[in-house]
């Protein structure tokens, strides 16, 4: 039996810190910035009394739950730290929603954060924990499908470049983004190579950031605000390690396919391209976004090139993707990313996304995938 969380939980408040190389901000500063924006958005005046529990997500926490408790002075509350690769923030949200659906709590705070720039390394660290794994970088992991996909479907670095160009343009419209820079496909193709097929602009930067949400039990959601945003479906799925999976096809990521199926079932989505109005998908590397179009069923397998060329995923297109600029523009403080996407989709569904607003957006999807990659989290939110 797989129950659904559909319409049982609502987002009644959302907040987000500025993302970037926040040299002068600590995780405390960012957590306070995000949480107090969410409090104000929900109308929470006394969080110590009004919140029942906290779920936080961080992949590189220095102190974990205490980082949130001390920053927000939230004591005598259950606080849980969730980790699930790049789906960490999304899974923290899912756990919070489940705790409400289980009948334990009425009002729960979700905080996603990470402070990567305190680690003293310029990029992602090179993993050195086992012999077999070496050397490995995230770029290498996420490039796993590149050669086979390009050979099979004829797409290449130009299509990847167009994704980077789109997301950079969207990022200039998002006040809290890290990179506000218009780029061209030429810039992308001529940038220095990081890990073929990824040049510099094909890769998301590392950054610092925090985002927060206030969730409410459905029955009480309208006591917080007139138009809450409703949870329609949430799914976290693990797939086999694509590096050792004997049945991996190198054309897309299994966990996205299975999480999408589960999430669409909950939300009653049968034609994702038509039914979903706006999507934030994991663009740690440009190819991740391209494969995700197909893994989420936005287009048929192999059709991403055609869809990219016809600009359907741009702002103003039929299904705008990464309206705030995505990981490309915000960077990827791992624990914060999924919650930041939910913040963006909340604004989109409330019609508060300013210059990047998708008119009339009623159904919004957010998606993360991480690890080798093995873990995917998807959330579908709705206006009604």
């Amino acid at each position, binding site marked *: 039996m797989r129950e659904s969380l559909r319409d049982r939980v609502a987002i009644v408040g959302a907040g987000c810190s500025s993302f970037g190389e926040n040299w002068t901000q600590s995780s405390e500063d960012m957590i306070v910035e995000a949480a107090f924006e969410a409090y104000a958005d929900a109308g929470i005046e006394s969080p110590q009394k009004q919140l029942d529990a906290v779920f936080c997500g961080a992949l590189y926490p220095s102190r974990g739950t205490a980082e949130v408790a001390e920053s927000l002075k939230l004591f005598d509350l259950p606080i849980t730290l969730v980790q699930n690769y790049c789906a960490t923030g999304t899974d923290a949200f899912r756990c919070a929603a489940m705790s409400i659906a289980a009948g334990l709590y009425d009002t729960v705070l979700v905080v996603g954060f990470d402070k990567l720039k305190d680690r003293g390394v310029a990029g992602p660290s090179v993993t050195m924990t086992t*012999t*077999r794994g070496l050397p490995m970088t995230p770029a*290498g992991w996420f490039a796993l499908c590149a050669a086979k996909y390009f050979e099979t479907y004829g797409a*290449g670095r130009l299509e990847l470049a167009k994704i980077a160009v789109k997301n950079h343009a969207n990022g200039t419209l998002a006040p809290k983004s890290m990179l506000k820079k218009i780029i061209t496909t030429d810039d992308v193709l001529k940038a220095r190579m990081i890990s073929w097929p990824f040049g510099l602009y094909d890769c998301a930067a590392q950054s610092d950031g925090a985002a927060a949400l206030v969730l409410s039990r459905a029955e009480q959601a309208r006591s917080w605000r007139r138009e809450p945003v409703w949870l329609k479906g949430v799914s976290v799925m693990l797939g086999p390690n694509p590096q*050792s999976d004997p049945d991996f096809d190198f054309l897309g990521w299994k966990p996205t396919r299975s999480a999408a199926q589960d999430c669409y079932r909950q939300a009653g989505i049968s034609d994702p391209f038509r039914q979903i109005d706006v999507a934030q998908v994991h663009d740690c590397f440009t190819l991740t976004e391209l494969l995700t179009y197909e893994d989420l069923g936005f287009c048929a397998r192999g059709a991403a090139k055609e869809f990219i060329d016809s600009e359907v995923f741009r702002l103003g297109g039929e299904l705008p993707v990464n309206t705030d600029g995505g990981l490309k523009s915000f960077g990827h403080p791992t624990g914060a990313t999924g919650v930041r996407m939910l913040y963006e989709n909340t604004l989109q569904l409330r019609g508060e996304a300013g210059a990047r607003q998708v008119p009339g957006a009623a159904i919004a999807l957010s998606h993360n995938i991480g690890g080798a990659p093995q873990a995917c989290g998807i959330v579908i939110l709705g206006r009604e």
Partner: protein
Amino acid sequence: MAGISACGVHVPRMRLPLSLIHSPEQRPSSREKAVAGADEDSITMAVAAAGDCLGGYERAVVDHLYLVSTSSYFAEKSAAAIVAKALGLRPDVLTVDYGGSLRGAAAALRAAVSAVASGSAGTVLVVASDTRTAEPYSAMESDLGDAAVALLVEADAPLRLEGDSAVNRQAFDVWRDDGTATLRSWEDRFVVRHGCIEPVTAAWEQLQSASALTPASVRFVACHAPDVRSHRELAGQLGFRGEQVIEPLFGRVGNCGSAFVPLLLAQALERAQPGDRVLTAFAGDGAHLMSWVLERPLERTPRLSEQLQRRIVMRSYRQYLQCRGLDPGQRSGASSDGISATVSYRDQDADIGFVGARCCDCGTEQYPPTRVCYRCFARDRFEPVALARRTGTLLSYSMDYFFPAPNPPVVAGVCALGGSARAYLQLADYAGETLQTGLPVEFVFRRIHHSGGRPAYFWKSRLIAGAAAPALEPGVTTDA
């Protein structure tokens, strides 16, 4: 009588043009030296040579493994035990490390012949492997090279050991003390005279007086020497002329230490005919001469010529220095903790042995071995499956310019391991060939890194010769 029945060689593909040592410009130069790649050392080269030697043999036949090297990564710790694990030898194989002496291979061969003659072992694998590092820019640097040779010793072998003779003469001619990366040497004329010519000549006179041997009765002589001039002088002094003298490969490989005379022996065995006598003349704090007779053809001729032809020419002297860890700007990686010794101990069958698992219920092969089957989910129904000697297929690849390496990019990707098992591996000896999925690969044992000051050994994939179109530039710049 006992002798050698198979010979395998490994000449690393990297070649440093000697002209690059003193000039940054690429000049057409016919003179070069063989250099272990950044992921090779005397341990990995020993595995490669032994693999070549054991090509047609069941690994289970080997009873003793004698590893000879003056350049093991370790001053204390058995390199032979690592080589045995990588080769998949039986756990009861006697592993012995011969270190220190440039003529250690002669001692090891002598011991191997005694062992099989006495019946204490049926088959002994002797591997000599050395990387030789001189002070950068020194005169000696051009004459040194890296290589490994493996010799299989059995009771009834085609190349019979007929007799030997040794003298000991300690001298500070060439030496390296513990903790020093580079070799030191005394004045070259002293090195040539008392490190080589005098003891070898003495041992040859001793051998002749104890037997009926004369220079004329010897078909080939494989002779140690510090450089090409002294080699010519020594051969002449011993009484050998012209075709008798096996070309010492200076300007192509270089003096590769304990593997040097075995490498010349391999060259002799490429040409020797039944009935031919081959003299091997080892030197190093004395000399050891061994006289061999080829009773019948070897089952497989050594493949030295083939390996001399497969080359990757280095583009700069700095690339060589980085391969040796001698570049001042290089990140050593030794400062980090490295891989946990307990993890690498537990994982050694998979990591060093490259052993996967086959599900006894559904036949699915998996790498690394797991407890539960990927396909039928049966628990603990696995048998080990050796993957190292298979050929595989490149299923995906990326070219990483981010990972620190002497010669980026580092190519890595998933390979099919000749069945359903797959592994994410680096591509070794990549020389800019045009890559595509589906290319056939073989597997080679390499040193992945030495984080924490401990080498981590693992397997890499390597394109099978001739399978990919060679290209001047990797596909990275042309794809758009």
